[in-house]
């Protein structure tokens, strides 16, 4: 039995076009999940490096902190 036939049978007789569509959808969904990594890292970085120190500094220190954070980007 060919791979194509096996795939078709495994998919309950779904058409080739149907399978292609489902694979494309799954790929897009996987990429969405992967994309979250960069976002999580960005948010974690700015919370730990910017927001937490901001909450505890005076105005001058806050300004220095913001300048310093920007310089390191």
């Amino acid at each position, binding site marked *: 039995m060919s791979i194509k036939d096996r795939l078709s049978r495994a998919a309950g007789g779904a058409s080739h076009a149907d399978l292609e569509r489902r694979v494309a959808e799954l*790929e897009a969904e996987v990429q969405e999940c992967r994309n979250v*990594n*960069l976002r999580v*890292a960005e948010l*974690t970085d700015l919370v730990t*490096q910017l927001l937490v120190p901001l909450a505890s500094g005076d105005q001058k220190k806050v300004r220095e902190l913001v300048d310093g*954070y920007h310089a*390191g980007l």
Partner: protein
Amino acid sequence: MPVTDVRVDDEGIHARSGREVILDVCFDGRRIWSFWLHRDGAALDGGHLVAWPDSLRAFLDGATRLSLNEHGSETPVYDEEVRLGAGEGRISVTDKQGNPLALDKDNRRVKTFAGRSAEHVAPLMDAIDEVITALGKVGIEGFLAYGTLLGAVRGGRLIGHDSDADLGYVSRHSEPADVVLESFRIQRDLTALGYRTTRYSGSAFKILVEESDGSLRGLDVFGGFMRDGHLHLMGEIRAPFERDWIFPLGTATLEGREFPVPADTDRFLSITYGPSWRVPDPAYKFETPRSTARRLSGWFRGIRTSRKEWDRAYASGSFDRGGGPSDLVRWIAEQEPDLGSFVDVGCGRGRDVAAMVAWRGVPALGLDVHGRSFRRQETQHAANDSVRFWTFNLLERRHHAAVAAYTGLALPAHRVVAARHLVDSIAADGEPMARLAELGAALAQGGSGRLYVEILSTWGSDGYPERHRLVRAVDPVEVERALQTAGARVLQRQLVPVSAEPGASVTCRIVADWPSAGSSTGGEA
């Protein structure tokens, strides 16, 4: 089978070969460019025509002894005096200072290592040394990677046709988000040591090193990690690998100095350049498996959409010089009698910021992804602490956070944020409008200001989009939708033809605000 029927003219290089060949092009005996005949050429008259790259065309006006060698061979397949363009003198491919230039594998003009003295490469060697030491201080064992490793292992020298240096490291982390955070931290530490850096992705950045002649050389730092029995290394590697094949690091000699390298350089170079890595090939390009590209892109990329085009635009130095403030900023000045501060996102040369400061004397912030674009205005306003120019990447949320924090501290309401030809200069897959709407929401929240967006809505035949290096026309509906998704109220929409000529491009101006809770009354457009 030999290369035959070679012909050189203003279009490019014509040649015929039954098999794929790499050809090195030399002008007066100096290598300028390398290409693959079939891959880079267009089939024509039974052979191939490889057109002159745009980056080289500007120099092709005069005579040269042009030789064409199959790479690795001493015998030229073509060696003739040729005349290109209408110029009388010799063709000279050099920069303004007279430094010899050549094209790299992406056809960018670079000062190559070939012909450079030890004194010239010494600062780069110092930088590699210093960066590896700095990485060590933060617990990272850096090593030579990619072309730099290849040069060291092959012959102890930087590869002549290469133009930058590459370092890699393999993280102890295996989760991509942790690898990214670590890369952020390393970049920050290196900035604190005084290095200029620019980020390429979530796990790679470039360090700019000044050489003895004042030119800047890039040093790329690629983050890697082990996951599922595979080594992943930005930018293109994912291969079955053992940690023991990297650690403990060995050493190799480069330009007379010892540097750390992966424990098994043969295996490492094989997954980078294939098993034939010992044979030189200056036109080599990575053929990344689709699954690897998808993984690395999904985890780490997406912050440099359309960046190459802008790198090229500002590399010329003359792009968008001269001229006065834009019509948009003049219009904003008329619309906003009570301006408290001004932010220009994608400010380019910074003329609109300078104009608003001159007219209204308000604090202002110019943001552009290219620090060199606004250097002149930055210098002119250096004594004015309320005027800042910052490098800023719209596609990185950490940049948004830094700008939002600075805005809260230094830019009083009523705050006007302008974004002129920003969204249309970034390809749609970078989602620039969504990012701009988020930034607008952060800077103009609670009724503290307004966002003015100007986009190209109709791509005309007048050359306007090309002059402004725009990549697409944008549907105003797309802009309004993104603004509304970010909680904005659209106040105005206005179509503005750029001239009265037939075929003129049309721009669209959209004004929005973020009213404080309870005061939203819907659009007035």
